[in-house]
């Protein structure tokens, strides 16, 4: 670009609103006494509502694509859908977290501000159409998350988790950057569209170099998504973080990570699809196998869900590696529904206190059906959905992903996936067993932080898993439209 042109700022309106509001919340919160902290929460939720409006306001017509900032920022229906999903999940996180944070005595405004900045990072990732912007968004997200994990600074395990996440996250970012720099060296551009054209030209003449660079990109991506063998940070971080942060990490950033995968692999590196499909296939099988098998031996509920996440990432990769419209939209469907499902699981866990402490272990849930049948049912629905048992939405998500791989003639991969998911079923059922079949131990008083608004939201969240399972059409239609 030779002359400076005023970029069209309107497509980035949601991001700008988010930035402004996050700063506003930060400042306003400074002047609030502790007992008025609820106002910060309210303001944060309002921010999400405002940004949702801005996102819808600037949304392009169906099928249209808007780019700005010299092509490095993109707004398409994929971006709009994913952003709205991120807002929704973050909204759930903000509401569910409140009582938990009070309990841990870390009910502070910074938690929400960091959350908002993390959302801003995710929004940038989702709309990024150049390596630079993508990296910027990713780092903004990661930095916010590091701080959130360490938020409970008196907890040793939280600090350890934050440290681990920071070191490994930095390593992953480094690998990603290294891949980006090689691609920059090959193509001389950071723009994904331009890059894809260069790759098309050089795919036959320069395959080794391209595959070399691609490997680093895929490794970086796998780190962020938590695919085996780059998953090591995930169980420790899930277990060590405050549960509200685990909930956040386990849901919204997965959506952003999915967007990153789409932007990088589909928009930028589609010319190397044969190579990365192969890589994702190995990563997917390894993730599903290790995630499901290792989850069986876990006693800590959060750690178990961490391994379960790893296996779900494997499933998402199945959809990605098919790389067809069906495959991508099914992977998107899987990602979105998984984010909603894990919100329920962690949301219920956060509310439960066992012997005066927050529940962590699977055994802490013993006899939950006896004391709190409603919460037990909500959690059970989420677990059955994760296991993919109909009529929950998890079944439909697995169905469409397996359909995608069978469609590209990889029946064996579909078989491997369903068989490994049967192994997965075992550990989900074990939690149901603990809740429903076991009796509470003596002196194991389960109490639940029973706030009406949380209860209503959590119930709606959980029942939506059944409703979406019965009527998946509209969500599926959005996902398909995003890749039209």
């Amino acid at each position, binding site marked *: 670009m030779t002359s400076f042109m005023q970029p069209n700022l309107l497509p980035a309106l949601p991001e700008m609103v988010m930035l402004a509001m996050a700063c506003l919340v930060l400042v306003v919160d400074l002047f609030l006494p502790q007992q008025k902290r609820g106002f910060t929460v309210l303001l944060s939720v309002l921010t999400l509502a405002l940004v949702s409006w801005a996102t819808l306001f600037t949304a392009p017509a169906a099928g249209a694509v808007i780019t700005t900032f010299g092509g490095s920022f993109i707004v398409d229906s994929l971006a709009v859908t994913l952003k709205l999903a991120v807002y929704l999940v973050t909204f759930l996180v903000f509401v569910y977290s409140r009582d938990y944070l009070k309990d841990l005595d870390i009910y502070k405004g910074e938690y929400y501000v960091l959350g908002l900045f993390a959302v801003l990072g995710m929004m940038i990732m989702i709309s990024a159409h150049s390596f630079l912007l993508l990296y910027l968004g990713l780092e903004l997200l990661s930095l916010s998350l590091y701080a959130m994990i360490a938020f409970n600074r008196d907890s040793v395990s939280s600090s350890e988790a934050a440290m681990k996440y920071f070191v490994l996250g930095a390593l992953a970012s480094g690998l990603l950057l290294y891949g980006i720099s090689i691609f920059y060296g090959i193509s001389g551009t950071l723009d994904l569209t331009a890059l894809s054209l260069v790759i098309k030209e050089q795919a036959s003449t320069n395959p080794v170099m391209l595959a070399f660079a691609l490997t680093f990109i895929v490794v970086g991506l796998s780190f962020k998504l938590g695919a085996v063998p780059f998953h090591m940070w995930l169980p420790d971080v899930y277990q060590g973080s405050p549960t509200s942060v685990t909930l956040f990490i386990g849901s919204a950033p997965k959506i952003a990570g999915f967007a990153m995968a789409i932007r990088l692999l589909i928009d930028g590196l589609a010319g190397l699809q044969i190579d990365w499909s192969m890589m994702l296939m190995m990563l997917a099988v390894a993730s599903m196998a290790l995630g499901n098998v290792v989850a069986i031996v876990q006693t800590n509920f959060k750690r178990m869900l961490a391994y379960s996440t790893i296996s779900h990432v494997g499933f998402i990769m199945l959809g990605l590696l098919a790389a067809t419209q069906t495959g991508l939209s099914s992977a998107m469907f899987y990602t979105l529904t998984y984010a909603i499902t894990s919100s329920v699981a962690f949301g219920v866990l956060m509310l439960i206190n066992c012997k005066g402490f927050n529940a962590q272990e699977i055994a802490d849930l013993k006899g939950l*059906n006896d004391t709190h*049948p409603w919460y037990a049912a909500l959690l059970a629905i989420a677990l*059955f959905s994760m296991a993919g*048992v*109909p*009529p929950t939405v998890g*079944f439909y998500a697995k*169905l*469409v992903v*397996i*359909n995608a791989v*069978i*469609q590209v003639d990889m*029946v064996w991969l*579909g*078989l491997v996936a*369903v*068989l490994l*998911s*049967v192994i997965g*079923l*075992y550990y989900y*059922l*074990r939690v*149901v*067993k603990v809740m*429903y*079949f076991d009796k509470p131990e003596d002196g194991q008083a389960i109490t639940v932080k029973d706030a009406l608004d949380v209860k209503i939201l959590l119930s709606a969240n959980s029942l939506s898993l059944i409703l979406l399972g019965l009527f*998946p*059409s509209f969500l*599926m*239609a959005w996902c*398909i439209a995003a890749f039209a």
Partner: protein
Amino acid sequence: MDTSMTMFADLPLLSLVIWMPVIGGIFVLFSGDQNPSGARKIALVFSILTFVLTIPLWTLFDSSTAAMQFVEKHVWIADFNINYALGVDGISMPLILLTSFTTILVIISAWEVIQYRASQYLAAFLIMEGAMIGSFAAMDSILFYIFFEAMLIPMFLIIGIWGGVNRIYATLKFFLYTFIGSVLMLVALIYMYNKSGSFAIIDLQNMQLSMNEQILIFLAFLGAFAVKVPMWPVHTWLPDAHVEAPTGGSVILAAIMLKIGGYGFLRFSLPITPDASQQLDWLIITMSLTAVVYIGFVALVQQDMKKLIAYSSIAHMGFVTLGFFIVYRIGTESQGAALALEGGMVQMVSHGFISGAMFLSVGVLYDRMHSRQIADYGGVVNTMPVFAAFMVFFAMANAGLPGTSGFVGEFMVILASFKANFWIAFLAATTLILGAAYTLWMVKRVVFGDIANDNVRALKDIGKREFLILALLAIAVLALGLYPDPLVNVMHPTISNLLQHISVSKL
């Protein structure tokens, strides 16, 4: 369509009978644990209402056609061409009636027995009823699959919460076994969808498939349905599940759930993969005969009454699968083939009544003595004469006494087998001896003889509630045994049509 039909013709009857119990179950669930007697009444009302709604399925059924009746079809998931399509023919309609009938008995049988969380217990049965009827009525394979899997969750909870000592092992085994079998079927269904562009069962039945494809798909279906039936050697979950399940759970499991496996063979395996079924019929016949003979011997040595009946269920279901897959050896065009298939179907319905009755009888004893061990009993006839009469009657039916329903199905299958191969028929016929041996020997030890101990001496005979359940079942067993024609006539056109379909090669 005559005038009496018009009243029901506008009603989505099948949807009603599927969703009525589910809604009833949700009602019962929310009526709470504080008011168990209210929950019982609501559950009973809904189960009776459902049964009443299934009666028009029988009375208005047109038994001159093999076409699907009471059809409902709505687009459900357009992107994948999945429809909410329901309909019944001659093989699904009797099973739906059996389901709604049995559920009433189960609800009544739980009346005083289940005190712990009665509302959850009853709700589970009602919701399960909806799912079971749904799987019989589904005309879309994904809809079938969803109902097929969804019924596992309530059963999992029923065994796990209200079961015996070893219930957790049993219920996990039950769930995992069934699930692993059915996911293979799911992959097969998706594969066929990608070839045919439709999940409708009728389209799958009509699509072309190569031999290799058929064999793999056949094996996938076998995985799903053999576990459900269950066939030897994947039967081991059943004795565990039966022994640990509460009485109602055992009844539903034996009377209905096993039938879904048999139904699946008729609806999916035979018509979708006819050539593979022919090629691999030796496999099924071997498995069936092993079930009949070997499992018959296993039943003989059981110490636990429920386990004995569980093994006898496996042996009896062996007849069903034998009847279904012997048709190729008889020749699908011949009369004998229809006899074999109808025999299998009659055996399914009859086994639904008899095994339900046997489990209820054991339940009656268990409620009083809290023991299922045969050795703890003896001379029950002295203290419970009315009950003893029922138990002996059902035992006779289980052993295949002529005049009871147990005889009809077995006789039809044996008769048909003779047209295929003498030795197959001979091995199958051993059941008449083995079945009599294990059942009557158990009855002898439990019911007859001198009063064995003080616990037996203190037994009280059955009350009105128990009498009602057992009497209803006894009438059903007798009626079907003496006059099976109505049932056979209903299914005849469907069976002939099925035989015509499978005699045409898909290659």
